[in-house]
């Protein structure tokens, strides 16, 4: 037995393995060469008869051959298995429904609140909440809304029995609370429920949600309000949205502006959603009125600030194309599962 014999064995076995077509055939070959009484075992036995000087070289050659053959068998074994000719798997009808744990949804209004608050959080705003039962001072007079004045008509209000307390008609009272308990600089958003005595119909509800935001510091300008609101509108409604500010009146801001975005349905051409105007009113805003600053003890000559407020239902209805506000409070599972 010499090293050249080993080389020819190598070629012979390689050919036999490659020609094998089944697992059984392969196993027979494995036994023939690598089995306990196989060719390699035989060769190893002959090792003892070799002259001492040949032993090391021959030993190395045998080991090398063995490793080579083991590799070849493993490779062939794998290729025979993966050819799938041998074993059959159970049939799976992939048209059957998938099996999974059902996942619930957050209410669409909560999702919109979260999205909006996250946008403002990225801009550096802090989320603050406040009570739903409020005082006249926080809801009206502190915000420069005299109690007996037509400017209050926009804020019809539920009062509590035998109390001077009321259900907040907007989230703005939290402005008063937050400004009284903190010092500028301030950048705050306030989500929450508000209440107005409006009969329930497709577009009105006696309870709805608002998000209020305000920023107070030295050198806050009307143009900053525009910048922040534009960033907001584009984040919610997309980059192509156009925004415009229109003069308006709110007792707690001066100058005041109503904010329109180009209609997301007709892209500004005019449709039934925007009343053929091409614009959708989405929020009210303005520079915080000096009287509000005076009320909370800030110096209006030193600080300026802006504030804005929006109806969450309105945003959600526009965003999702919902046409009836009552759907939000009916909680039909077929509705909830769409978001």
């Amino acid at each position, binding site marked *: 037995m010499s090293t050249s014999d080993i080389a020819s064995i190598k070629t012979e076995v390689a050919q036999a393995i490659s020609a094998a077509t089944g697992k059984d055939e392969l196993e027979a070959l494995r036994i023939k060469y690598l089995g306990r009484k196989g060719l390699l075992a035989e060769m190893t036995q002959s090792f003892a008869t070799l002259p001492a000087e040949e032993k090391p070289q021959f030993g190395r050659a045998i080991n090398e051959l063995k490793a080579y053959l083991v590799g070849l068998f493993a490779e062939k074994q794998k290729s025979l298995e993966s050819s799938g000719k041998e074993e059959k798997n159970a049939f799976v009808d992939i048209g059957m429904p998938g*099996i999974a*744990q*059902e996942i*619930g*949804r*957050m*209410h669409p*209004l909560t999702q919109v609140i979260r999205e909006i*608050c996250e946008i403002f959080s990225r801009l*550096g*705003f*802090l*989320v*603050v*909440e406040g009570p*739903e*039962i409020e005082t006249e001072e926080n809801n009206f007079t502190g915000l420069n809304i005299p109690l007996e*004045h*037509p400017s209050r008509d926009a804020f019809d209000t*539920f*009062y*509590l*029995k035998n*109390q001077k*307390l009321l*259900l907040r008609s907007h989230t703005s009272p939290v402005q008063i609370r937050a400004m009284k308990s903190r010092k500028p*600089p301030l*950048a*705050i958003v306030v*989500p929450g429920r508000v*209440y107005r*005595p409006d*009969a329930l119909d497709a577009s009105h509800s*006696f309870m709805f949600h608002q998000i209020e935001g305000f*920023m107070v*510091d030295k050198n806050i*300008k*009307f*143009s*900053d309000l525009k*910048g*922040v609101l*534009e960033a907001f509108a584009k984040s919610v409604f997309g980059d192509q949205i156009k925004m*415009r*500010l*229109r*003069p*308006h*009146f709110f007792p707690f801001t*001066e*100058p005041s502006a109503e904010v329109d975005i180009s209609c997301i349905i007709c892209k500004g051409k005019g449709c039934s959603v925007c009343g053929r105007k091409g614009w959708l009113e989405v929020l009210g805003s303005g*520079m915080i009125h*000096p009287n509000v600053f005076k009320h909370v003890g800030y110096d209006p000559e030193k600080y*300026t600030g802006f504030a804005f407020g929006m109806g969450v239902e309105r945003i959600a209805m526009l965003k999702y194309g919902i046409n009836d506000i009552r759907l939000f*409070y009916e*909680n*039909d*599972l*077929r509705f*909830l599962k769409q978001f």
Partner: protein
Amino acid sequence: MKVTYNWLKDFVQIKLAPQALAEKLTMAGLEVVSLEEKDGDWVLEIEITSNRPDWLSVAGIAREVAALTNVKCEIRNTKSETNHKSKIPKTKLEIKIEDKKDCPLYTARVIQNVKVAQSPGWMRKRLELVGIRPVNNIVDITNYVLLETGEPLHAFDLDKLAHQDGFEIAVRRARNGEKIMAIDGKERTLDKDILVIADSFRPVAVAGVIGGKDTEVGPGTKNILLEAAKFSPVLIRRGRQKLGISTESSYRFERDVDMESVNFASLRAGQMIQKEAGGGTVLFLSQSKAVPKCRPKPIKLDVQKVKNVLGVEIPVPKIKNILGHLGLKVKTARGSLEVSVPSFRRDLLRDVDLIEEVCRIHGYGLIPVTTPCITPQVFSNGEFDLNFIIRNILIAEGLNEVITHSLINEDLLERCAIGTKGVFLDNPLSKELEMLRPTLIPSFLNVTAHNLNRKLKPVRIFEIAKRFLSPEKEEYVLTISLCAEASWCGINGKQEEKMSLLHLKGVIENLLERLGVGGCDFSPAAHNAFYANAAFALKIGNSQAGIMGQVRQEILNAFDIKNQALFLAEINLGDLYKVINLNRRFMPLPAYPAVTRDISILVGADIGVQELSDCIEQEGQPFIKEVKVADFYAGEHIPKGSRGLTFSCLYQSAERTLQDDEVNGAHQKILENLKNKFGAKLR
């Protein structure tokens, strides 16, 4: 407020087409909500904000158009009146104003020998275009002048005013219980909060709101008394709210009328009546006890502040030009402007008001877009963020979030057998919405019923909302309820799982586990809405944080939930927030293998699983690491009053691989104790 294009042209030259004019007005704060071509004219309907009573007139809007289009406009083109007093003998007419605060100015113009007839076609047409029904020439003229000037007028039939020796017009508070038949044909009862115009005997008009039927100008009227006045806005507002009416007059008076337009409007109407109805003014009396002769101080406007507030520099000549066109007088005084405000702009009180005017006419669209220099808020959002963590856990449990109304009917609480605590409204919209709910339970039963009625199952819902226990106490609660069965097609065909109290317990346990809350005790408690043997108090941390239970069937029936069991928990989040711990510490994984042994026993059905597993855990020390209920059975092969239970016990040591005899020893000790303490039999 409706105006017509041609009517505006009486005062100002307009070169813009109606559409372009409407757009310009909208962008200046006079939102044109509709524009309609009618009878050869265009009608603009404009929404007027409550701070601008001067815009409640054609003249006021014309002034705005002039400012916006940079042209002049002539508002008061009627020649001022020659003094009638000189012509007239001391007539027996006296105006008595009870309180000058209620009525700072009252004028009465007596016009004799009018011919009441239809007013001319052009006037009727204009009135109709803006939505006013023509009546007769006298009434139409008062309405026409009201629309033109913004000053409401009222004409009385002079001969119907009752008097003794000489006419007396009193402006006074009504006496409690006094009545008036108004021109709308309805009798109204008055009280001392309502201001009236009275003759010698009785009220003849609710001041500033509505006239009286008795003294109305009709076809037979010959002589009239024309009223133009200024009343206290708050008083008019209260009065019309009490009477439940709003008129063109009250709408303007409660927004306050321009002191200086009172006389003018009276004169204008007088001249028109003379022309159209042939009458002649014989007397004009103006009674005023509080004409503010001194004008308000000019407002100082620092030009630099305009830039600071708006973020854009507007050249001084432009500022002066804008303010001038709006009817303000501007003087330059050392770096700042001194601006005098006319009587019709009493809404302008301080510099920012002027800055808004400048910006409004300049155009909001020309304000640049800048990013504010912000001081980042590094705090967490606190409870707002925690509520979202809670929501995320619960939706992963398969629950859907609902949002229900905070306002309910007390009757709903009674139906839930819950004693009425809660906060009632003084002015509810309806009985259905009379109070703030002290619990979310009724709302949840309603939502569940709604969905079951539509065959939507299972109903697994939660809400985070306030409950109101008293006016001073509103708190966030988390309410969860499970009802009906979940069914799906599994690997072996149809699978169905009915919701149970243990499903609810599982949700709560998972929630608390994820929130890092040590655990929760469920101890039997009493609650009217729940079955006595299925009501539990939840102790979280050291607080009784909530309740959990199965709602009694008769309550479910009252909410139209039939043949279904409903499980509900309500947790006070204030208590939960205190113990939430979102920090995590890594525990090294066990280095040595664990051994699992099961224990199958038969015990009395009255012995609780908790007691048994507590015993196992105690006796299995120090090697027992976990005890789980692996199975339970009752029925066949099990004696009555007993049940079979299998516990799976996991033994493990942190120091070494446990030997069989160590585990066997511990296991044996457990079995002995279960036998001795609970009479358990090994199966």
